């Protein structure tokens, strides 16, 4: 649940999702679920010249399992809080 909660705090922020096939999309995080599926609004494909196929989409559901990375602005992350939550969660798992 740690990263599900983490991404819920990033709803409304601009993120870049890089898929395992190297395609990258930027957009505003609209929602996330327990599988870390994400929904983006105002979505754009990075390198739209190479990937024109998605020019007409308004918003986008991305399956969590196809994601490699998600880039986040560091200003939107409270790293101390995140580390603390991580320690708590790893302690609970025992």
């Amino acid at each position: 649940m740690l990263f599900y909660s983490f991404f819920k705090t990033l709803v409304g922020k601009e993120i870049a999702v890089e898929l395992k096939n190297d395609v990258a999309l930027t957009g505003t995080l609209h929602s996330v679920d327990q599988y870390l599926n994400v929904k983006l609004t105002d979505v754009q494909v990075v390198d739209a010249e190479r990937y024109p196929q998605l020019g007409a989409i308004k918003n986008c559901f991305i399956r969590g399992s196809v994601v490699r990375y998600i880039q986040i602005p560091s200003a939107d992350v409270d790293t101390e809080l995140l580390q603390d939550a991580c320690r708590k969660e790893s302690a609970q798992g025992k």
Partner: protein
Amino acid sequence: MGLPGMGFQHPVPPPPPPPAFFPGSASLFEQLDKRVMVVLRDGRHLVGVMRSYDQFSNIVLEDTHERHFVRDIFGDISLGLYLVRGDALVLMGELDETREETPRLRRVSADEIIEAQQEASAEERQDAKLDWLFQDLS
């Protein structure tokens, strides 16, 4: 006095919202009955109306077309009613029909796109699909 056949109808409560529909949860609910573009792991692009989904992201697509791209043109080949397995799904985007055609991407008929694909070199034909292909399928 409430006996069967007397015609007394209890009011039906409204159905509860689908379990996935909670604030903050990435739901496919908002794309129900909308025209969407679905990208699959093998690089295919499908368009259709999303009629249902489940917790595995399996979806039913009505009036499905496979969208083929060659250089600056695209065309749709009709496929019918599809059940797409969730683990083959990469992404699903709601289509803005006013933006499908652009100065750089023109729609052509199904026959034209098939012809264009046959004329295109073997590499060109594979380009659009390969770009989107996930390595573990190659």
